[in-house]
């Protein structure tokens, strides 16, 4: 740093021990120092001024040194005079230094300004598939209710997928048009068509009572199009305990609906047929967008429920006692309920997704849309 010469006032008095530190002289030196400090405008000139006016060879230091030349009775007064002048200069210096530091910092920070709208370099963020997120959320809801999560193989024994679930040997679901079988057919293996075999495994392996959900992949010999996938995901639930009733089933379904879609959402059940439940029902979810208010209200149509007020969600029912019997459970003492819903479908209507194929194509833009979660 250089400092312009005109900023440093000339010191008029040369060092001279003969200087007499009388009041007028001290005042003159004080004035000169304060003037010099006031005239500084950066830390370098301030440092120079400080040196010139308070340094060892400054006139004031000289005057201080000359106190000894005074008669003893004047020394005290002269000392006080110089002391006061020095404190005034020090105070002025500190004040000026604070001002200059602030100005200089402001200038430095201004000079360091960046364009904060520039993109941040680095690796792109990753993302979890919305199915994974939804399955975790659903499992968490049940775990919080005291249930457990049961898992099982995707390639499954025919007995566990069908026979134990009260599918007769000629039930249409067993036809090759619906189920993907392992070659040869006589091996009696297949890709599970639902996660219900996991429930059978739970009943065979666990102590009663059983409260389990089984999330996972399921397989159907379905065409691959916008509304059908040969592989999709289900979450099924099974409760077997003493005194289980259909009221408990309704309560559990409402609990899940509320946890996922909001406290004012409930479900309804419509009679249906499944081999493994009796009575059986289909579960509809009250539309979480329009709350049913779009029904008969063509001016406010609802895309989510197609203005039907309810969204088809899954199937449910009281576990058919034949299923419990096939697992060796005393049906006089125990009863159970079961339910299941499509996870892909749930994500689809929750997110308003239009094409199921996007769930399995692996396009990186798909997951990115769910970075903030599925709910």
């Amino acid at each position, binding site marked *: 740093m250089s400092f312009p010469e005109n900023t440093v006032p000339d010191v008029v008095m040369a060092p001279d021990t003969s200087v007499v530190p009388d009041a007028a002289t001290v005042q003159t030196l004080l004035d000169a120092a304060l003037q010099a400090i006031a005239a500084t405008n950066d830390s370098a000139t301030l440092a120079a001024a400080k040196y010139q006016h308070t340094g060892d060879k400054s006139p004031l230091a000289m005057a201080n040194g000359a106190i000894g030349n005074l008669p003893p009775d004047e020394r005290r007064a002269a000392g006080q005079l110089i002391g006061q002048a020095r404190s005034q200069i020090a105070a002025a210096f500190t004040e000026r230094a604070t001002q200059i530091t602030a100005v200089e910092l402001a200038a430095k920070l201004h000079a360091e300004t960046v364009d904060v709208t520039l993109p941040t370099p680095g690796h792109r963020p990753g993302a979890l598939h919305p199915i994974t997120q939804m399955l975790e959320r659903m499992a968490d809801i049940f775990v919080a209710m005291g249930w457990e999560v049961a898992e099982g193989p995707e390639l499954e024994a025919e007995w566990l997928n069908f026979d134990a679930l009260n599918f007769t040997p*000629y039930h249409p679901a067993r036809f090759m048009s619906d189920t993907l079988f392992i070659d040869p057919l006589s091996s*009696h*293996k297949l*890709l599970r068509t639902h996660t219900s075999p996991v429930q059978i495994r739970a009943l065979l392996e666990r102590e009663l009572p059983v*409260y389990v959900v089984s999330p996972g992949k399921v397989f159907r010999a379905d065409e691959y199009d916008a509304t059908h996938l040969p592989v999709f995901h289900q979450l099924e639930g099974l409760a077997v305990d003493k005194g289980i009733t259909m009221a408990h089933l*309704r309560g559990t379904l409402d*609990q899940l609906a509320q946890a996922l879609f909001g406290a004012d959402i409930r479900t309804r059940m419509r009679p249906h047929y499944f081999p493994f439940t009796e009575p059986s029902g289909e579960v509809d979810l009250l539309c979480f967008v329009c709350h049913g208010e779009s029904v008969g209200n063509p001016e406010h149509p609802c895309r989510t429920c197609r203005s039907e007020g309810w969204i088809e969600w899954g199937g449910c029912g009281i576990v058919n006692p034949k299923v419990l019997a096939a697992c060796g459970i005393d049906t006089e003492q125990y009863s159970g309920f079961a339910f299941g819903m499509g996870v892909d479908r749930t994500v689809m209507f929750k997110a308003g997704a239009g094409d199921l194929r996007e769930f399995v194509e692996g396009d990186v833009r798909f997951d990115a849309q769910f970075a903030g979660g599925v709910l």
Partner: protein
Amino acid sequence: MKAPFSWIQELAGLPSDVTAQQLAAEFTRVGLQVERIDTPADAITGAVVVGQVLSFVEEPQKNGKTIRWCQVDVGTHNPMGAPARGIVCGALNFIAGDYVAVALAGAVLPGGFEIAARKTYGHISDGMICAADELGLGSDHSGIMVLDATLAATLLGQDALSILGAYESVFEIDVTPDMGYCLSIRGLAREAAQAFGLEFRDPYATPVPPATQAGYPVLLASSNCPTFSALSVHGVDPNAPTPDWMVSRLAACGTRSLGLAIDVTNYVMYESGQPIHGYDASKLVGSIVVRQAVPGEHITTLDGIARTLVPDDLLITDDSGPIGLAGVMGGLTTELDVGKTTEILIEAAQFDPITLGRTYRRLALASEASRRFERGVDAGVGFAAGLRCAELLRELAGGVIDAAYTVAGEVTTPPTCSFPATLPSNILGVEISIDKVLSILSASGVTVTFSDETLTCAPPTWRRDLIDSYDYVEEIAQKIGYDSIPVVTPQANVGRGLTREQTLRRTVVHAVATAGFTEVLTLPFVGLAELSGLHISAGDVRYRAVRLANPLSEEQAYLRTTLLTGLVAAANRNTSRSLDDLALFESGAVFWDTSTAPTPLPGVSGRPSDAEITALYQSLPAQPHMLAALLCGAWVPPSWQTPAVPADWTHALRFAEVAATTLGIELVRRAATVTPWHPGRCAELGVFSSDGEFVTLGYAGELHPDVVKTLGLPTRACAVELNLDELLMQAPHASEVRALSQFPLTKQDVALVVDTATPAVAVESALLAGAGDLLESLALFDVYSGAQLGEGKKSLAYSLRFRHAERTLTEAEATAARDAAVAAATAATGAVLRA
């Protein structure tokens, strides 16, 4: 099933103020889901009127087609002063004098088809004579509709839609497999009556009489046909037309008119649920015998196709051989001929659903009849349905019903069921009075008695679904309405949270997603060509793919043995969409055909034996859960600040290390040569077990350039695949923590020269072993090779951090520890301290 509202209304005796929508709501409540209500007239605007074809001229056209230039009298709609309108018609199935439906100019038919007077085939055609499908009344386009003259004559020029039944509301109902009895207007009407609290009068109440061979002789030689009623009608007018009301109801049900005799059998089937077959009795030879087919036997069915039969097929035969595939399709030789047949034998029989199902599936001959038999036809309705058929032929075609009829076989009585009267309330979770239970079951046709707190129920013949106690519970639940069941959340007090494995698996997928990888869920089907593309060949467990018996496509007939096939497909899909910088991962099961044991099929009457359960489980192939990633393009895209960082082998390894370290596992790497990786850029990843054995957990690195080229991936694509099940098993359980030293750190750096081929990990582990307990951590900060080191040498520079647990370490102690570390490295790898 399609069902016209008026027909249900008529049979159920519903009050006229009940609307189709109200009935639909009640049906849905009891499990008959009404998918749609169609009213064809709603899709038509403008006038469709009754016209009479006064005359026509046939005009052959150059395109080989013949059109008719018709003069059609449409009453008040005739042009001023003219007796008729001129209309061009392409159909040939009418004669002068016939009454037809005419869409006038200005009418808009279903599908937005606008009718206008326009020039065609050299005439101004002023309107259109309609076929059934053009008005949305079924699918028949075989010709135009010829209206029943007696009614139409009184309505000339007036609305034709009313006599065509186009104002009818037609339900489309999804009938579940257990409600086969509702595949009939009669069954639906019974439910409708019950829903509205009306007493149902069954028009088919006549029971099957005791067996008699008084009529046409019928012999049942197969247990797959329990009963067979045969009624004869003589002197039927072969030219009698089908009345419009019947045509329109059949059309509403989805069946076109094929002549009165056939129409009557179809009409009765829809109404009663009992499929009926009519034979031209004059073509029958000798007794009817119902039997299984003999191998190699043939029949030509009504559709004119000769079919080879198998012993599974149930046949209706006479002395001439097979004359019908029972319940599936009749034979050509005894067909009813419109315009000829006067002697009709009516068959109303029961056939075994399973046998029949196998036959129609094998021959791809699904029909309204086979669908009903498969769902179970009312065992008690056969004779009444046959009789109704005969009566309609008498009324509509002057037939004479033969008083002598045949009933072969017997109606089996369905089993009764007893259960505690409290069961319905206990299962449904709502108190239902015994009176309510009795009244519901009686209305459903069940004969029910109540004594000693027990209900004993005998189901009606049409309720094949009422077998066990819970079937009755369901019947009661549906009739009280599921909505009346309360909502109670059960208390499950058994939960222990997610298992350790479930928690760890979540941790891993979250960690790799956070580290910049995007999860995909791909379809698990592969072809062997895809495995070959990855250089996976016989001898590799990943080549032992499980084959599907009925794959969705022959190109992908196997299940994946590695997640890389799906990731490659996903990567290619992305790059085809110009999404080139990819870090994809998938977590999921693969299938290795490691077990050839057949899977047992135990019974279902009780729990299988432990041996059977073990055999069930062990017969399944290995299905390990894998975790894999594929990278290509830029790991860090080029930016204003830094150039692009291409995705390379280090990022593939980073994926593995993120997965491992998040579980507290320290992966050990060693160079490996494994497909599909680059032989010089592939790391085998694993851990040393407690007994010193190396446990392989997976592989990571750059893909082999040939693989990259074959699969069409971007150059230098990298991949990693880990066995997630095995990885999770290596996760250490939480151990005791040590107190953290507060004493100062001493740093020492060393540069060691080793042979280029010496793995860094060997040097590192020797340093770790040699440095002793004072070493807090160690990091490789430079790798250098150059002329000064000499050919085949490289320098590895490490920074070592030493700290004492209980006191300040001296410089001399740190140096001694460093020297010990270097000595160990020298001993293990020949490392020389770089000058």
